[in-house]
């Protein structure tokens, strides 16, 4: 399991290194404006082909690039209802504090759990390899706690079910 996680994250890292070649690009549609083209999508020649990296049916990562911005959308594995609720709460907690993260998008893209939006301004202020490290380590870190919390919750209920029945 750890092996496939490592392969998955290496694949994402390599794709991000190629995709994060962003530059300042003023809007072609509206004068004096500068918007992330991946969100706008009005000029198809400025968008590159989106890449979908799937670890299995439940976990995937969509990377969409344009000339000045990059959007990474993640879907984490949710085995049952409980995990579903936990994931939603945890990710909603993070998304509400998106300003602190700077690269996080407030609402995930339709069909995914979490989205990042990286623009050329982030690449100018921060170093590109550090940004990629951040995203990959975020993904890695987010895989652990949910499972552990789930296990601890399940064990809690088992224990108290045991206590109540005997």
């Amino acid at each position, binding site marked *: 399991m750890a092996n496939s996680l*490592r392969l998955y994250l290496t694949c994402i*890292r390599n794709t991000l290194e190629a995709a994060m070649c962003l530059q300042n690009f003023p809007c072609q549609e509206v004068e004096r404006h500068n918007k992330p083209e991946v969100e706008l999508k009005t000029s198809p020649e400025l968008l590159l082909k989106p890449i979908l990296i799937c670890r299995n049916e439940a976990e995937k990562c969509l990377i969409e690039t344009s000339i000045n911005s990059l959007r990474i959308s993640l879907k984490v594995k949710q085995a049952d209802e409980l995990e579903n609720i936990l994931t939603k709460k945890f990710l909603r907690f993070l998304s509400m504090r998106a300003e602190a993260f700077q690269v996080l998008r407030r609402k995930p893209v339709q069909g995914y759990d979490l989205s990042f939006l990286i623009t050329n301004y982030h690449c100018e202020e921060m170093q590109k390899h550090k940004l990629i*490290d951040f995203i990959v380590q975020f993904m890695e870190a987010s895989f652990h706690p949910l499972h552990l919390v789930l296990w601890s919750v399940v064990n809690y209920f088992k224990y108290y079910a045991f206590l109540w029945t005997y």
Partner: protein
Amino acid sequence: MAAVAVHQFAPCITCHAWSPDRSMVAFCPNNSEVHIYKLSEDKWEQAHILQKHDQIVSGIDWSSRANRIVTVSHDRNSYVWNYEGSEWVPTLVILRLNRAALCVQWSPQENKFAVGSGAKTVCICYYEQENNWWVSKLIRKRHNSSVTSVAWHPNNILLATTSTDGKCRVFSTFIKGVDTRDSKAGSSSDSKFGEQILQLDLSFSWAFGVNWSPSGNTLAYVGHSSTIYFVDDVGPSPLAQNVAFRDLPLRDVLFISEKVVIGVGFDCNPMVFAADESGMWSFVRFLGERKTSSTGPKYGSQFSEAFGKLYGQSKHSINNDGIDNSRQRGGVHENCITCIVPLGEAGSSTITRFSTSGLDGKVVIWDLESQQDLLEYL
């Protein structure tokens, strides 16, 4: 080492240009101003600040004979600055653009300059003496997307442009009253203004950074798919070659001789391309040293602590050893190199010194005198 001098001028530099005597450098520190620094006794001092634009200045060019600076900006304006007394005075340019201007270059005879814009047009500007301003003629019809880079042919009439629609085009910019019809120039002087001589559809992705060789025989431009295109005998039957490389895409190119091209881009390291005797171009090597440091996982450890606190676990170490961290590319520049400018005399066919500036705010001067293996190619 090929990098002779490194100067950190600002947190981030958009573009730069040198004065004719190479003692002053003008650059845009990623805002609406142009800073001019002067080298006096081995120290760089801020000499002037040119403040007229409202948005980021995307292109600066300093003409070598007339000592004029032209600046273009995302606010659709352009100014030509003349040095009068001890101040730089702007002259109005009637650009007639309705979108941002992206790039600018003085023509070889410095009576015209070309501006590429996000309005899918190219403006050729020339001086009108009666009103003391610069007027423009637009090349409107041909481009399908923003014009990212312009380059003048040595004959002062042909102009090559690259665009985000992936194509490189060559136009004639003959203007009556400004250019003279030269009978020796042949077909190029017979064309009307704005006539497209050639359209090169070699790239699948956006095209940037076009440059002519010193004789005007070869054209080079870069595509975002990590390829560089060389076109010989630009005319009715051009010969095109493309060189694909493994690394990140380039942003700008410079011919330092007929057979050697330097490309700069997202790898933060200049790349040298050379042609052999048969005319086949290939990648030679990187100019700077490549760093392979793997920096410590600072973000990772903060996260593991944060998660530990959130879920009340005392210690949960996240194993980072299995996954390699991204290595920092390039040695001298720490972020993407956006601009490369020659530092030789204007019009010379071989240059050994050039400067690069990037998003890390550094201007680096490179000299190939110490690189024996590359001097052979020149």
